[in-house]
């Protein structure tokens, strides 16, 4: 167990009621700096509310969230979110889209240029720089959003099922890419997904939530070397275990 000084994010007793609806119940956990954490749970267990609490769109009924030891504050701390629907601005080119967040935060020009060059290289989007999102496929548009989020170098990057309905081949490609980006930028990532294979493929640690009111059922450490092999017996063992924990059907 690492010392609390090394924890980037601390969540303590997070509880949320919407009037009488008890959505989250006493959720506590820590995230190390640069860790890749996956959150899984049965459908409708409150994962989106969980995400909204982490981004401070909602305030918890009880409990607190700390970033770098201080209470989380959207003005001070830098939080990025990637959603399932591609949210690229249709009126901006790929290049401008990637710059967008950083320009809003008023980062120095040379820094923005440096990060953009780096990100375009990592994503392999050199030839698409001046294209508009509607000229690209949905998956490429989504990759731009992810690139934009990473380029912000946020304190915490939240991803809510960004690869929702894509087929396996595409997914594996995108998952490899997000790991590449993560390794390169050292960002602390919380990745929410329904897809257990995806969670086991990506995560260093998996948080398993219960049904509403959501609690942490279990934390599973995934200690497999990368790149991971989905047919490896160890991989399958972990996947089986996590599936058992949330199977409701």
């Amino acid at each position, binding site marked *: 167990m690492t010392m609390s000084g090394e924890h980037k994010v601390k969540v303590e007793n997070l509880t949320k009621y919407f009037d009488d609806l008890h959505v989250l119940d006493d959720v506590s956990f820590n995230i190390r700096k640069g860790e890749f954490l996956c959150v899984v749970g049965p459908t409708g267990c409150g994962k989106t509310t969980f995400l909204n609490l982490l981004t401070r769109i909602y305030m918890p009924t009880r409990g607190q969230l700390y970033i770098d030891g201080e209470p989380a504050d959207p003005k001070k701390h830098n939080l990025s979110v990637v959603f399932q629907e591609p949210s690229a601005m249709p009126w901006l080119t790929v290049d401008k889209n990637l710059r967008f967040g950083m320009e809003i935060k008023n980062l120095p020009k040379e820094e923005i240029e440096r990060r953009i060059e780096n990100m375009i290289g990592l994503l392999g989007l050199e030839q698409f720089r001046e294209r508009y999102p509607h000229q690209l496929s949905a998956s490429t548009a989504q990759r731009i959003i992810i690139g934009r989020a990473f380029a912000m170098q946020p304190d915490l990057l939240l991803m809510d099922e960004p690869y929702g309905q894509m087929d396996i081949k595409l997914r594996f490609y995108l998952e490899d890419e997000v790991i590449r980006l993560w390794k390169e930028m050292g960002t602390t990532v919380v990745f929410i997904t329904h897809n257990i294979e995806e969670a086991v493929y990506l995560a260093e640690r998996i948080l398993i939530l219960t049904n509403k009111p959501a609690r942490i059922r279990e934390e599973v450490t995934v200690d497999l070397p990368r790149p991971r092999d989905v*047919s490896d017996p160890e991989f399958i063992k972990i*996947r089986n275990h996590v599936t058992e924990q949330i199977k409701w059907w």
Partner: protein
Amino acid sequence: MDKKKQVILSLRNISHSFIVKNEVKAAVSDVSLDVYDNEFLVVLGPGHSGKTVLMNVIAGIEKLVEGKIYLRGEEIHGSNRSIGMVFQSLNLMPWRTVMQNVEFGLELAGLDKKQRRLIAQKHIDLVRLSGFESAYPHELSGGMKQRVGIARAYANNPEILIMDEPFGALDAQTRYAMEEEVLRIWKEEKRTVIFVTNNIEEAVYLADRIVLLSNCPARVKHIYDLSSLGRPRNMMDPEFLRIRTEISQNTDLAL
């Protein structure tokens, strides 16, 4: 083990094009295929590969322009009572209750109310929606709406049932549950099923055979026979994963 397999549907040299923005775009290119009686055939292809167009041609929604379709040896044109469809985007009529939606085909065929209700009820029970007969579609969840679509198609008693990416809009876990449901229903009411999807795992889980289509324009790339994988299938079984990887490597990437 090798039962005499009868061909129920035969596609020969089907091609189809569209005019998009003054350009002729080919969606389906020279597809020939045999479908066996009572098999669960999965048509697998990357997104926008033209699979839906192919299905629409078979079901009669799109006009058959090039190629021929034979049902039990006889040539068919346009829609046919023997071919039913579960649509990708639900297409449930929002002004009808679940019961009224399920009995739609029967109503068109002219059955009297008593008969219709009986048959429709049987199928509502089959898809495990008993109790929701008077609900409207907007009151149902995604998975439940799909089940109504399946009940509606089955109630019309087609010999061949086309399911066009019915679970595309559902989340992973509901999808797994629905895949098990579809197999259960297929076992109980054996029909020929042509199931269309872009999800390789789903295809390997469900299919007797998989027809792999290329990117647009759709061509048959390969046909996989999965009879070596028994049922029920386990998605984490090594053989399952091996086949999945093999198919995945053969699939065109729609990046």
